[in-house]
């Protein structure tokens, strides 16, 4: 659909909207239920040059953690998805500042995390509350009677908790 539209002189705004729609279909490789848009790592979409037949599109992404090994995969996925929709010219750029924060995960994203079994971040990133002092709801049974096992979980962005009621261990997406 987008490939057809390309030749009909879409306004830049429409192209940017179309690119956002494509980005919404790409999921984070580590949390495959969450789109990279809901995760809040898309910093911006720009059309750098629109004179050519195919516009040059710049997508700026930001890492959740400095050493996030998923960044390279995500860059490739974005490039491939754009290519598949007929956008042959794109640059994927990384930006570090302002640093990504869990505040940028959308409400929709938080619900998807929970449905997947990962407790979504509680509070705002600069609340300055320590993990031990937080009451995290178990994503399985919704009990607030949970405790921290380790500040570092299966990936850098998560901590490991356990539920004292249903006894299930679970990942908590750290407020960051």
């Amino acid at each position, binding site marked *: 659909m987008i490939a057809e539209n390309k030749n009909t002189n879409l306004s830049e705004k429409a192209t940017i909207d179309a690119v956002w729609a494509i980005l919404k279909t790409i999921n984070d490789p580590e949390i495959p239920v969450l789109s990279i848009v809901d995760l809040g790592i898309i910093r911006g979409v720009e059309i750098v040059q629109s004179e050519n037949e195919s516009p040059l599109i710049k997508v700026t992404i930001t*890492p959740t*953690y*400095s*050493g*996030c*090994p998923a960044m390279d995969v995500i860059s490739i996925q974005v490039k491939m998805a754009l290519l598949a929709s007929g956008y042959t010219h794109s640059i994927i750029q990384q*930006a*570090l*500042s*302002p*640093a*990504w924060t869990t505040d940028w995960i959308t409400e929709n994203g938080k619900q998807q995390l929970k449905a997947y079994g990962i407790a979504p971040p509680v509070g705002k*990133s600069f609340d300055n509350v*320590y993990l031990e002092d937080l009451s995290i709801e178990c994503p399985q049974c919704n009990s607030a009677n949970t405790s921290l*096992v*380790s*500040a*570092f*979980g*299966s*990936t*850098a962005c998560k901590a*490991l908790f356990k539920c004292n009621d249903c006894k299930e261990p679970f990942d908590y997406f*750290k407020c*960051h």
Partner: protein
Amino acid sequence: MKMLNKIDYLLHLADNALIIGHRCSEWCGHGPILEQDIAVSNIALDYIGQARNLYQYAAELINSKNDPFVGFVLPSTEDSLAYLRDTTDYKNHLLLELPNGDWAVTTLRLFLFSSYQYFLFNELIKNEDSQLSAIAEKSLKEVTYHVRWSGDWVIRLGDGTDESKNKIEKAIDYLWPYTGELFSGNDQSIELNWNKKVEVLFNEATLKMPTKTWMQEGGLRGIHTEHLGFILAEMQHLQRAYPNSEW
């Protein structure tokens, strides 16, 4: 840091992150329990991420000089800077290249270093160089977790059994002479804040602050302990044996 130019200063920060990251990564698969193994491996990943950001920026500056006598492989990349420089080119602090020793040495070193980084990055966020300030801003969030995690261990070991206390006291004696170097060239407030932070935590851990002692130094000038050569031999082996190989 007044005594280093910008490229050297970036390399110094990057080398620090890479070498401590490498030491932390040595625990992968060897941690005392699974959760702590994962924690220390995650911390390694954070550091290697920091190192990549810093090396990439240093490479960009080196290449933009357009000077064939700049003293680095051209064009420089994050990989050439990490894998094709020798021990005397490395500018990391000596503290970070010391062997991991036992869990007490590992966690205490991480506490001493990440607390230093915490105060340093709080300064660097204000740096006029926007890229350096962005890297500091990103890293600071991670460092805050490292300080918490390692500090908790120092308290647990210090205020634990006779054996754990004995081990952490030995670790203090071993590591302390390498802490002086952290502050050379830095604003004095960093050392003051760091001292305060360490003292408060040591108190909680029922540990004594060491008395003033002679301090080791040399890392910034490329003068290292014998341990760095072994790290580089292992880390650089593939790139040296098969030049330009890629994953």
